[in-house]
């Protein structure tokens, strides 16, 4: 099985090619350029390095969010564009699950946090690869209560922000920097796992996972703004 993994749900972007679970090539960049400039060349380069043509792909796995609104749109649109011509099956992978994936061996909770700005993060919680809290939008201050007692490892582009803000409020640790960003290889691996369970969809049915504040929160925010 040959899988192309794509991620652009945060500031960094990457593309990876897996053959039967083995990582053949991965291109990763975090240089402040927009995904619209870097992602398609990264995919092309990863495919070239792996000597795989788009026609040969058995699966296209892409991180569908939550995260950067623009980044998710670019990643999902690119995945659809590559998958459509050859009817390649696709698998949407949550960006928080992809973040937690390399830390599946950590015995405590893994909190995957993506910076949603204004003191908020998109957060999903995992224990040894199992999702115990699906991704949602919350205030950083709500994190200790969500995680409860016990050690928790923070990953994602919001990890440092949360770690600094919540110092002394729990047993938090920061994942090593090289594990703190989403990797397309993790997206590809999770895509293969989803495919083994028969959870793929045609490109036309692939959907982004935008998580927006609930209507109640929106109303509250707007009321607060009016008071100012």
């Amino acid at each position, binding site marked *: 099985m040959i899988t192309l993994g794509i991620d652009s749900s945060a500031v960094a972007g990457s593309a990876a090619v897996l053959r039967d679970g083995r990582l053949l090539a991965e291109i990763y960049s975090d240089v402040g350029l927009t995904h619209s400039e870097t992602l398609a060349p990264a995919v092309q380069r990863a495919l070239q390095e792996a000597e795989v043509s788009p026609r040969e792909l058995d699966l296209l796995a892409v991180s569908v969010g939550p995260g*950067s609104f623009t980044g998710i*749109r670019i990643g999902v649109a690119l995945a659809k564009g590559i998958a459509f011509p050859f009817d390649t099956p696709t698998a949407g992978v949550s960006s928080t699950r992809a973040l937690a994936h390399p830390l599946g061996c950590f015995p405590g909770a893994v909190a995957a946090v993506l910076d949603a700005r204004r003191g908020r993060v998109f957060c999903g919680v995992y224990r040894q690869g199992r999702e115990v809290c699906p991704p949602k939008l919350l205030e950083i201050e709500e994190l200790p209560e969500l995680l409860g007692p016990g050690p928790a490892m923070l990953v994602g582009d919001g990890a440092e922000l949360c770690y600094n803000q919540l110092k002394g409020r729990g047993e938090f640790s920061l994942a090593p920097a090289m594990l703190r960003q989403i990797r397309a290889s993790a997206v590809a691996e999770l895509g293969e796992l989803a495919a083994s369970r028969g959870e793929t969809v045609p490109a036309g049915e692939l959907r982004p996972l935008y998580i927006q*504040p609930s209507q109640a929160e929106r109303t509250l925010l*707007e009321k607060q703004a009016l008071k100012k």
Partner: protein
Amino acid sequence: MNQYLGRVPVFHFDMYRIEGEGDLCSTGYYDYLDGRSVLFIEWSENIAFALPEDTITVSIEKTPGGRRIEVAGIPEGRE
């Protein structure tokens, strides 16, 4: 949104049609609050709930003799 990429990236948003958080998210606005860029926001009153604390506000008002421009929020020592 228009972008002007130079030494400091500048992004121009027009929020005239934005009504609330849902609309705002769909512009990608939050992706640009990265601390490295300058955002020029027209109709910023429509997104008052989402403006950063260090926002500088420029008000332009028509007057009989021309126009009056008022700038507020410039940090101390940087005037």
